[in-house]
């Protein structure tokens, strides 16, 4: 039962981290020196509008009380209302999260072959020109900022091969096909950036596994080469890349901010940029909490998977 205890420990520590994140977000946005109301409204706000905002944010209450109220509301699913439109934050956030989840799922689907195939080719052709060429390509892509890659894909597909839209505006009335078309370029961008991180690691893991004794053994037994790679080497080489995949999830949360902006895709990332510019505190707080929660959850899942997959940790 050691494993169960380890997993429970990880879950508890993740929850504690999430609690600390909520405290940090609140401190940074609402307690830091300087009046919150003036920071939201800017310097030339009228005293009346400052007074109204102070009232709406309960700024005259002590900070710890405001934090506890905010946290309590948050835990019961009440994220407050937007300062700009007055709509409940949940109504603003909901459709954006849906759009981003759809985009992320599409990107992950593309990510798997984009990460695996080049790594397999490199491992099999190791130290030959094709391997070096692919290494160079991944290094260049690794060094290419995502906003630049997105912009270049935009030029290529909108100018040279005009089959995909330059602006990925969709809403609830869009058909599934429109969604698919709108999401393709942003998803390809995200998938390439994520895959590049994984390819380099997977290549090295694969080479290590291909050199291991049990793979040699399988080869000596006369197992066909393709089967050795697919059934023996690949599954074992994939385990250490779980960590990279968790890191990729972390990247994805920041990546959607950039990529959604480039393609004007109405997701969670473009919402974050909009509300940061508008200083819409309740929406900013909810959005960042969500980003941190997803990230912490991703890391937790990666840790649990690693625990379950590692026999040494399993026995003690």
């Amino acid at each position, binding site marked *: 039962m050691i494993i169960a205890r380890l997993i429970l420990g990880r879950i508890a520590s993740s929850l504690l981290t999430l609690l*600390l994140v909520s405290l940090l*977000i609140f401190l940074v946005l609402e307690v830091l020196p*300087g009046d919150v109301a003036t920071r939201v409204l800017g310097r030339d706000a009228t005293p009346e509008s400052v007074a109204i905002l102070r009232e709406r944010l309960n700024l005259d209450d002590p900070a710890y009380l405001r934090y506890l109220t905010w946290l309590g509301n948050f835990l019961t699913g009440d994220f407050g209302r937007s300062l700009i439109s007055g709509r409940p934050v949940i109504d603003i956030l909901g459709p954006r999260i849906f759009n981003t989840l759809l985009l992320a799922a599409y990107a992950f689907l593309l990510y798997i072959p984009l990460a695996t195939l080049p790594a397999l080719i490199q491992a099999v052709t190791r130290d030959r020109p094709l391997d070096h060429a692919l290494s160079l390509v991944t290094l260049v892509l690794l*060094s290419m900022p995502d906003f630049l890659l997105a912009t270049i894909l935009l*030029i290529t597909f909108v100018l040279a091969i005009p089959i995909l839209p330059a602006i990925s505006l969709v809403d609830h009335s869009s058909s599934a096909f429109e969604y698919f078309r709108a999401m393709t370029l942003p998803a390809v961008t995200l998938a390439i950036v994520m895959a590049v991180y994984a390819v*380099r690691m997977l290549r090295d893991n694969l080479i290590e596994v291909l050199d291991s004794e049990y793979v040699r053994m399988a080869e000596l037994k006369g197992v066909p080469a393709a089967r050795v790679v697919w059934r023996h080497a690949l599954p074992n080489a994939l385990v250490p890349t779980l960590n990279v995949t968790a890191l990729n999830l972390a990247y994805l949360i920041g990546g959607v901010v950039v990529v959604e902006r480039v393609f004007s895709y109405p997701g969670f990332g473009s919402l974050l940029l909009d509300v940061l510019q508008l200083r819409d505190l309740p929406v900013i707080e909810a959005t960042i909490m969500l*980003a941190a929660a997803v990230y912490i959850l991703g890391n937790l899942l990666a840790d649990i998977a690693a625990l379950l997959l590692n026999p040494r940790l399993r026995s003690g």
Partner: protein
Amino acid sequence: MTALDHPTGASGWLGLWRRTPLSFRIGAVILLLHGLVAVFGPYLVPYGYSEMRTGIPLTGMSFEHPFGVDQLGRDVFSRVVHGAHIVILLSLSGTALGLVLGSIVGLLSGYVGGWIDNVIQRLLETLISIPFLVLALLAMAAAGPELAGNPVLVILVVALVYFPRIARMARSAAIDIATRDFVTIAKLRGETAWSVMRRELLPNATSVLLVEFALRAGYAPVLIGSLGFLGFGVKPPTPEWGLMISENRALLIISPITVLGPGLALASLVVGLNLFTEGLARILGRTVKLGGA
């Protein structure tokens, strides 16, 4: 054993250079070029970074304007060259500040241990749990409209994003070093934690920290560029490359070079830094996972 130990015939500086990994040499040359452009470039290019009416706006590549002319009639090539020292200085000072903070916090935390270490680890974990671009944007927004676009703020934000990650590396190095005899002896001599950190831990963690610095510095131009691109970095007319890519995006179809030019500058700087880091790591006998996050 490190890559430099392999005996070859050559000796002196040239021999040393020849024995470094190829990636290190290519990276160093690219960085040297960027450094030269950053230092001398501004005196050599024909136009200032905010000089308008240098040519016909929206014309593409030409001999006088290798990277074209932007909407305001500014020469994009001159702007890219003027931007080099800004991008490099912001990246290096932000990363350096993150390194200093991260090393002190990480080494002390790992050496002291106990509940202090636990508390510090929790706090660092909290900062790491916010995706770094989101954290950077949050910090930019929290600073308020008066400080927006201030280069010092950009440096502080880079340091804020990096120091917890560097501290985590420094801490594991400190825990490893702290088990050695010379640390025990220093402790028995009655040295304070600060002096043990400075005189025993720091010198022995140099190679870890050096690679960590190079790795983080390699991603800093992208982070700064992303902030500029999203409108949360330095303000126009500063010729920061990410900001330029964002400004010229509207010209993409008419004159793609106005976007590709600054993009090439940014990507080549990062390629140089990444190759340099990979080579440096190999020289110091370490493995490094490129990619920033």
